[in-house]
């Protein structure tokens, strides 16, 4: 059952206190206002942004900041493209490699299974900073410094996807697979034609989470990407903040460009994302 489904409350049928709504609207306001300010400021002129910061309504309304960004000294469109390519490629690699590995760990018997699973899970608890310097050297040796390969490949090796999908595969009823096996289907067919189609919701959730993680990563790309044209959007924003410091409209426009894709993705996949997060505490 879904972790956030409404629970039946026999005997507790009082009306919800109005203060509950007051509280929820207040929190919503605190969350939304800064984001609203970001969007609105991106449509301000430089002068407007600096001279009337307390008034969020652009006067005049202008898309100059976006025009400046598109034609400016920093290749933000290239960064956007790099981010899309890297996040998409990494998501695909994770879906393929993690689903196959998770299937083996969930359904197949093999020598060393407990050790392999134990090692994979143990790395979930290791903080990312442990990998920062050694992976920098590995990526350097592979000739991937300052290239998108550094953004795509190392991050696709994390244990989360395997752990996440294994949990889901285990929860699938084994009867269908057993019936297929009786009918003579091999492991590859069962995986491809039965397990994967049944797992579409979990695969979709993992895809969204992987895309978001890669899109938003910051510490790794700021160190392994060097040339302006090779950056992704997050390190790009750091550059924009340096280049345009008090041209707040332009910096906010960059932040909007980096936000819109993930906000759209979140709106579309809100239910899956929130569910998977809700379950993390209960099952974790």
């Amino acid at each position, binding site marked *: 059952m879904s*972790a956030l489904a409404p629970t039946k409350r026999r005997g*507790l049928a009082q009306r919800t206190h109005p203060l509950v709504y007051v509280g929820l609207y207040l929190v919503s306001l605190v969350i939304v206002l800064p984001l609203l300010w970001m969007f609105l400021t991106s449509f301000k002129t430089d002068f407007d942004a600096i001279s009337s910061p307390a008034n969020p309504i652009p006067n005049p309304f202008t898309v100059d900041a976006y025009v400046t960004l598109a034609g400016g000294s920093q290749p933000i469109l290239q960064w956007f493209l790099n981010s899309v390519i890297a996040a998409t490629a990494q998501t695909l690699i994770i879906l393929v490699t993690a689903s196959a590995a998770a299937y083996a760990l969930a359904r197949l018997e093999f020598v060393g299974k407990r050790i392999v699973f134990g090692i994979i899970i143990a790395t979930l608890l290791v903080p990312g900073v442990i990998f920062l*310097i050694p992976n920098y050297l590995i990526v350097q040796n592979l000739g991937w410094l300052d290239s998108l390969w550094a953004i795509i490949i190392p991050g696709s090796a994390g244990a989360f996807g395997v752990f996440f999908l294994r949990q889901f595969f285990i929860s699938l009823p084994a009867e269908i697979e057993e019936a297929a096996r009786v009918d003579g289907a091999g492991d590859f067919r069962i995986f491809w034609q039965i397990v994967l189609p049944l797992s579409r919701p979990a695969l979709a959730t993992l895809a969204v989470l992987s895309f978001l993680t890669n899109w938003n990563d910051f510490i790794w790309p700021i*160190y392994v990407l060097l040339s302006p044209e090779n950056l992704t959007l997050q390190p790009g*924003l750091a550059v924009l903040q340096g280049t345009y410091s008090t041209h707040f409209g332009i910096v906010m426009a960059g932040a909007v460009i980096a936000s819109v894709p993930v906000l759209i993705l*979140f709106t579309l996949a809100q239910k899956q994302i929130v569910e998977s*997060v809700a379950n993390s505490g209960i099952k974790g």
Partner: protein
Amino acid sequence: MGRRSAIAYLFLAPFLILFSVFVLGPAIYGLWISLHVWNPLLDNHPFVGLQNYIDLFTPGSLTSGDFWKSMGATGIFTVASVPLLLLIPLGIAMLLNNRVRGGSVFRGIFFAPYVLGVAVISVLWRYLLDPQLGVVNALIGQDIPWTVQVPWAWISLVGITVWWTLGLNTIILLAGLKGISAELYEAAAIDGAGPWRKFTSVTLPGLRPVMTFVVTVTILASANMFGQAYLITKGGPGTDTRTAIMYIADQGLTQNQMGAATAMSYLLFAVLAAVSVLNFRLQRDNTL
């Protein structure tokens, strides 16, 4: 190896290759690096045994002062942010645990900042909190040095982080609240328990397993703080808000002191592991 095992390893192979090269390998390689003076620009990396670790515990060594100051900064941030990231989300989750019209919309709004990258929320708040030209000072008519003086810089970093990630803990705690049986509340009501008594006798004990998870994850996340300080305060004023991760990354990847930096990262890991174990023990023994 039997045929069954061979097939299983065929399934595992693509992941295990990546995992070995970019996760397991680096974890061990990092330990190896930490036993050397390792400047990536030089061909020769002299083996020094545990010297990099010993240096971190030797007052007056090249690294110990700055390292422990950065650990202290991480500690301040963690101690200040974790209670807020437990209490505020718990309060919001309890609000959402009522019959609320539009509950999923509220959940979506509260979670939304978390899907934005640290760079986005940092440049946004860097603008809002700009001491001279920012929105917040303009709104309240003050000249508060939000990003350039302590303790304001800490207040800003903690507040921004709470704003950014409160939705995450809210959602997890809400799921925990939903898992508490309504019968327990009814029984408490029959026994004459008021709201506070219900909270301490039913809600908190019922949340304990989820709370242990949330506390651990939140401590680890706070202890790994990097982007906010990197972009908003640049570690300043001076190096007051330079966190351990910032110092390690700077030493290893900018100053080319990779041996010392990897030693620091393993020491940080050890501290975090100890804190996690301690937290699990405390929560298990705690009979609230």
